[in-house]
């Protein structure tokens, strides 16, 4: 009889015992956000074209309307997640000097969060009319 030496299946072992314990999270999030980015980017471009040729009051009114606000929030959220992973991959591929790499990776996270939150602030301000 070939009794199995381990109860865990080979797949479960591969999943749980990789050197880093995880690995495909960023890969998967990059693709999920990519799928979300397509309709959201198209919607954001349509919104931007709608605003062309209008004055600030009209632009603010359109940007602050509920549907546009929700679309723009989703757009900013999705692209922020996507671009943070993308820039992380670029840094990891091309920067081989460890201290610099660490600084750039942290800076990348800071940039993504700052620019994302600043955009969200701008959208919410228009929506709530503050």
């Amino acid at each position: 009889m070939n009794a199995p030496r381990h109860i865990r299946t080979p797949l479960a072992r591969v999943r749980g015992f990789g050197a880093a314990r995880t690995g495909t999270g960023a890969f998967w999030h990059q693709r999920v956000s990519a799928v979300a980015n397509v309709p959201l980017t198209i919607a954001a471009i349509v919104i931007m074209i709608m605003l062309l040729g209008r004055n600030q009051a009209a632009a603010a009114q359109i940007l602050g309307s509920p549907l546009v606000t929700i679309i723009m929030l989703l757009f900013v959220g999705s692209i922020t997640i996507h671009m943070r992973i993308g820039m992380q991959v670029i840094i990891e591929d091309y920067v081989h000097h460890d201290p610099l790499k660490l600084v750039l990776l942290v800076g990348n996270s800071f940039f993504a969060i700052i620019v994302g939150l600043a955009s969200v602030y701008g959208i919410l301000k228009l929506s709530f009319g503050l």
Partner: protein
Amino acid sequence: MMAEPGSLHARARAERPLSPHLQIYRPMLTMMMSIVHRITGAANYFGTILLAWWLNAAAGPSGYARFQTFAGSWIGRIILFGYTWSVIHHMLGGIRHLIWDSGRGFGPNEREWLVAANLIGSIAITIVLWMVGLLAMGGSQ
């Protein structure tokens, strides 16, 4: 462990042949479009500064006027046109990569067709969007 200069170990390191890298390959559209996908992604990354500026400028007339002055200037137009193409190109490239992720489109003709469609499509869509945009602005400017 550090090898002493001139030791067998150090010489072996120095003389070890390197595996061929990018420069031995004849440039092909697929590999050019691969790096362009990264470059446009990085451009879109920094372009979000403009997005954040625009969204925050829309709250007041003076801030919006400053953004419009930038957007209407020659340098602003060039940057925004480039940003438009970069976003569209990266989006179409992303769809191409999602098709490839599904295991399809890797044939010799299919992959060439996909990258050509990516490039031609991004340029065509960018020009159409700007024509629509300039027409939309025509009423007021």
